[in-house]
């Protein structure tokens, strides 16, 4: 595993009025790593995700992608740089088909403008063909190809998550951010998910994920950050974190 850090959050703080959702959080993801964020409900995990992906500009602190300071950049700029996310409460485009949802994912990597489209330029046509091909390949990989013409939200819940992964992959990201990818999945589906995440890592992606399913997190993550009341109270390899007394008190103790 290389040691190159691709994502770094430095002393990130996010306040909502009087509420401090994230407080001085530090976090790093290296190339080809699978990193987990755990913590009780309301700990600030999703908020930190939103800070990283540009949904909220952090009140204080910086986010770096490679060596670039991306604090305050918009989500679409950040996606273009090579980060793609999924949402805790699935957000698909309901009036678009499965295929179109994934084709949309390619958006940030294509260029055809309004005039290209109106005049059907060569560039636009070629790009459109490539987009279609890429989307179909991804759907084959994630097992949704057969359902490509169905409306995104007509899929069963589990498949909708797969579609969100597919859409994220379509933007050719370097770093994938999954917010509670196993939520609502049964044991078999969760097992498939962990295989899938390993496969993604082998394909060269780096992954940052928020997860509640302890078994999953402990089994797939290289490193884990534990968030409680907006603060990172521990981080390290799964074994270290599992035995950390603060963590046991803040989180695991309550769960088990």
């Amino acid at each position, binding site marked *: 595993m290389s040691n190159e850090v691709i994502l770094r959050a430095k002393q990130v703080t996010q306040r909502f009025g009087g509420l401090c959702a994230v407080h001085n959080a530090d976090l790093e993801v290296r190339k080809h790593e699978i990193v987990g964020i755990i913590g009780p409900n309301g700990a600030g995990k999703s908020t930190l995700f939103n800070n990283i992906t540009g949904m909220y500009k952090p009140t204080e602190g910086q986010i770096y992608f490679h060596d670039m300071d991306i604090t305050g950049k*918009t989500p679409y700029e950040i996606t273009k740089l090579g980060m793609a996310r999924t949402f805790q409460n699935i*957000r698909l485009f309901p009036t678009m088909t499965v295929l179109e949802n994934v*084709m949309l994912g390619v958006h940030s990597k294509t260029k055809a403008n309004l005039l290209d489209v109106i005049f059907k330029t060569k560039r636009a046509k070629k790009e459109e063909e490539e987009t279609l091909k890429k989307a179909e390949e991804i759907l084959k990989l994630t097992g949704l190809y057969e359902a490509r013409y169905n409306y995104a939200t007509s899929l069963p819940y589990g498949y909708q998550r797969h579609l969100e992964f597919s859409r994220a992959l379509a933007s050719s990201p370097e770093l994938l951010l999954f917010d509670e990818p196993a939520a609502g999945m049964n044991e078999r589906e969760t097992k498939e998910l962990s295989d899938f995440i390993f496969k993604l890592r082998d394909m060269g992606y780096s992954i940052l994920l928020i997860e509640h399913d302890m078994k999953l997190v402990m089994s797939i993550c290289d490193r884990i950050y534990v968030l409680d009341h907006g603060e990172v109270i521990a981080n390290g390899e799964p074994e270290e974190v599992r035995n950390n007394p603060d963590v046991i008190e803040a989180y695991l103790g309550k769960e088990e």
Partner: protein
Amino acid sequence: MKRLLHVWAKHEKYVNVVLFAAAVVYPLIFTRQYLINVGILCLVYVLLSLSLNVLTGYMGITGLGWAGFFGIGAYTAAILSTKAGWNFILTFLAAMAVTGMFGLLIGMPTRKLSGRYVAIVTMAFCEICRALETNMDWLTRGSRGIPNIPRLELFGMKFNKQAQYYLILFLVLLAVIVMGRIVNSRIGRGVLAVKDDDIAASAMGVNPFSYKVMIFGVAASLAGLAGAFYAHYIGFIDPSNFTFDQSTIIISMTIMGGLGNPMGSVLGAVTLTVLPEILRPLMDVRQIVYGVMLIIMMIVRPQGILGGFNLKHIRQQDSVHKEVRNE
């Protein structure tokens, strides 16, 4: 009903060709000036309704003051042709450019405002336009209007009624083709995504704001084109052509016909242009009939008669079912 939809989806191309052919032969069969005039009026409204459909049907932004853009297009063409003697091809292009620019401008508040507030902005815009048209006397001659707008002519040949009809038909065809290309493209997907969920769209690399502004520009410039044609066709315009009532008529056509479906705009515009003509003997009651119809529509089918479905998707889904059955 559902069956019919699938049949339509399967033969969409033929349906379009047949409809277009019918539009082409119409002035050859109905040669009375009055009927051709009604045909032209229908097509002007089809173009207006289509342009608004781009914004309201595809982008999901309700445009309440659409006559504002119609008016800017008409005034641009009227002023340039009467004062500077421009040919209609140039006035059409200029009208599209000027109106498009205003579209971009009115799209700007979408950065901060949500849909329904933007709708109010467009409404206010229409009123401002009318006020300017009325008060900028040196340019627009105020409420006296602009008379003697040169009729459509090319190389010294004046367009007769039929030729005028074919010109607006051609413009409508062009608009339908352009819309189709936009919808089935990277840009069209971006538009739909922003309409469906602008947060998710933004997370997937689409800049929602620039899409909204761009679509405002495109939609407005098509409305401006309709205005330019109208000015040359009718020969005299004044601010009373471009009131809020006019806007209401246009949005009724778009919504009643069907959001997000070009054929919806055709249906809506033709029905709501022809119906008042037929109901003319009823005079005042006509407005009531009209209003009641719209209310019933909004309750029974809020997405409009031909709205809420996508023929391409139906076709794709049917093709998969067929494959499965054949295996």
